[in-house]
């Protein structure tokens, strides 16, 4: 799941591209945890009930907070009211991500319906991002290969800060949606998006724009900015929590290694954040086994945590380590936070060969 994009556009800044062993390492197999097949099967089970248990309250909170915010419009109460609404709205980014994996619901249409709703809300066109995110999981934190590298190296501080208000990431997405709506698709997109998906993506962008144009029309008709406060703009004024949590996923950690234990974090956070973030704080577990639904990630964590570096006890601990490392990476792009991997007794293997565990 991406956060601040690499705005530099400079391949020269990517040490991986000058690393002669990069292709060799990409060809290796990713580290896989040891886990009994039966346990894994249980953890992978999809459930509409579990999905609805999170998504229905979220929708209710979204609607309730929008009503409160609308009623408070014109008073100073609107500031905290829209802060709450925007924060709940921006939880759509975590939802988009989980739904892209197809895991929150057992029923396919439920998953797809919420996926396209969340994609629109968080300003990530659904068809484009489904394919882009697939590459993130294939080449997690391989510079020049992973399209969702969170923080460029050397670190650029400004994009990280402005993206607490979505100013870079969401602005770039809006520009991309407009381009694609007019059929202008760049070579990079052509390289990973199958031809069959291209018309769907273009029409999806057009629908996005129609909804936004309709909202602008409402604002003009009523001579009020209020309608615009509910669509897309919350990703700017309410995106702080997503950026705060999202940065902890990979920033500052190792690059170009096929071991998620070295390039991905798990951080313990409070239940409210976990609800809004769909347990993506268990990000290491998610990358190791992306088929495990969000509601089973805490259980997966308990099963395999002995094989992983220790989880961070909280956001403060993660940031206390991450911020100095990112600062150092401004002048030393090769510097990384080194995670301690537990010494293991047995060799790493695939699930299929370990049914007897």
């Amino acid at each position, binding site marked *: 799941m991406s956060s601040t994009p690499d705005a530099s556009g400079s391949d020269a800044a990517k040490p991986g591209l000058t690393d002669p062993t990069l292709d060799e390492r990409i060809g290796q197999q990713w580290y896989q945890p040891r886990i009994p097949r039966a346990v894994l*099967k249980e953890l992978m089970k*999809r459930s509409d009930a579990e999905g609805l248990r999170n998504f229905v309250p979220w929708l209710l909170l979204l609607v309730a907070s929008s009503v409160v915010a609308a009623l408070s419009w014109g008073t100073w109460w609107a500031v905290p009211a829209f802060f709450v609404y925007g924060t709940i709205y921006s939880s759509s980014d975590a939802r988009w991500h989980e739904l892209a994996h197809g895991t929150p619901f057992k029923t396919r249409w439920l998953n797809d319906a919420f996926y396209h709703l969340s994609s629109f809300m968080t300003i990530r066109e659904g068809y484009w991002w489904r*394919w882009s995110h*697939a590459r993130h999981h*294939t080449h997690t934190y391989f510079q020049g290969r992973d399209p969702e590298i969170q923080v460029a190296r050397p670190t650029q501080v400004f994009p990280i800060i402005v993206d607490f208000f979505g100013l870079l990431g969401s602005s770039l997405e809006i520009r991309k949606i407009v381009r694609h709506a007019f059929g202008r698709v760049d070579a990079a997109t052509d390289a990973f998006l*199958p031809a069959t998906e291209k018309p769907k993506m273009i029409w999806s962008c057009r629908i996005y724009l129609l909804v936004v144009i309709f909202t602008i029309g409402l604002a003009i008709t009523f001579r009020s900015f209020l309608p615009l406060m509910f669509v897309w703009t919350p990703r700017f004024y309410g995106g702080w929590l997503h950026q705060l949590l999202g940065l902890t996923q990979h920033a500052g950690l190792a690059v170009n290694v096929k071991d998620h234990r070295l390039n991905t974090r798990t951080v313990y956070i409070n239940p409210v954040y976990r609800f809004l973030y769909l347990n993506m704080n268990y990000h290491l577990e998610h990358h190791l086994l*992306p*088929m495990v639904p969000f509601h089973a990630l805490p259980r997966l964590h308990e099963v395999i945590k002995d094989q992983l570096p220790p989880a961070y006890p909280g956001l403060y601990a993660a940031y206390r380590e991450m911020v100095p490392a990112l600062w150092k990476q401004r002048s030393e792009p090769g510097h990384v936070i080194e995670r301690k991997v537990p010494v293991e007794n047995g060799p790493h293997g*695939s699930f*299929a060969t370990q049914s007897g565990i």
Partner: protein
Amino acid sequence: MAVETNDIEWVVACAASEIAEEDVIRFDYAGASYAVYRIAEGFFASDGWCTHERAHLADGFVLAREIECPLHQGRFDIPTGKPKSPPVCVHLKTYPVRVEGGEVLLGVPAQAQAAS
């Protein structure tokens, strides 16, 4: 055990009891790798590797009559190999399967014997 019939060679992949319902196992034979499935409709087999990227489908998840790739969650229809969900879009090769005497037999190309 291997029994050749024209261009198909029947080989024992596993005991039927080795695969739980709605599950999949990996079977390697003569330099090739297969995924053998058990679903409500019976036993089926396909190429082991996903047609999208290098991931073995035996590490994936069986949902009714679909197999989901462990790497990107692309899905194939198990009996036909038809791609059902992005990012997979290339057909998955399937192989005939029969159950005899409690054993699951897989019909693999006969030339696989020569290759071994």
